[in-house]
């Protein structure tokens, strides 16, 4: 699974993208955010407020309770500020 990070999420984690295989039991976006936070201080800091994190699964906006099975690309980013 490819993970992409944008804006301050990218800066805090310290990378723009990476490929990972989450362990069994990581079924939803919520689970993924929780598991990522265990991967180090930078992740924990970036994702400390899950409510501030927006998620897209294969280019579609998704809620945190959405299952991630079969998803190829997960993007994590702050609320959008374009326009």
């Amino acid at each position, binding site marked *: 699974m490819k993970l*992409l990070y*944008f*804006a*301050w999420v990218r800066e805090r984690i310290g990378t723009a993208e990476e490929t990972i295989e989450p362990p069994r039991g990581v079924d939803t976006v919520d689970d993924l955010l929780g598991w990522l936070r265990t991967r180090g201080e930078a992740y924990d800091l970036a994702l400390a407020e899950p409510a501030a994190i927006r998620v*897209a699964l294969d*280019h579609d*906006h998704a809620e945190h309770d959405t299952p991630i099975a079969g998803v190829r690309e997960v*993007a994590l*980013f*702050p*609320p*959008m*500020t*374009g*326009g």
Partner: protein
Amino acid sequence: MAHVRVAIVSEPLDITAEIERVTTGRGDIGAVVTFTGLCRDEDGRLEALELEHYPGMAETEVTRIAEQAAKRWEISDVTVLHRHGKVKPGETIVLVVTASKHRHAAFESAEFIMDFLKTHAPFWKKEHTAAGAVAWVSAKSSDDDAEERWNTVD
């Protein structure tokens, strides 16, 4: 179905060219509405905005919003152009052009597109100040309210 043109570009946007592209050779368009979003200097404090985007999804999401507008209103053309990269005060960040037989569809669809673009299109602004500081711009709750009204009013 309306003709939809969406592009995420790093070059300056040309509003005149976009209006001409829509209206040239057409006798059926009675109204063209354009919205231009500009970079402000915040009373001289701001030197530039840096726009980050999610390549691939940004185009997809903006197209989705434009197509929703085309379903909801009788518009024949919709153009949405958005900059990425560094934008200086006075430069255009976003350009929306809608064309229809009558003005209401063009006005309302342009506003709808901007309201959804603000909350759904994956772009993030970073401020570069004249003093050399950099900071991410925070999302505004008023933008969520602006989007919400389209779910209640028809």
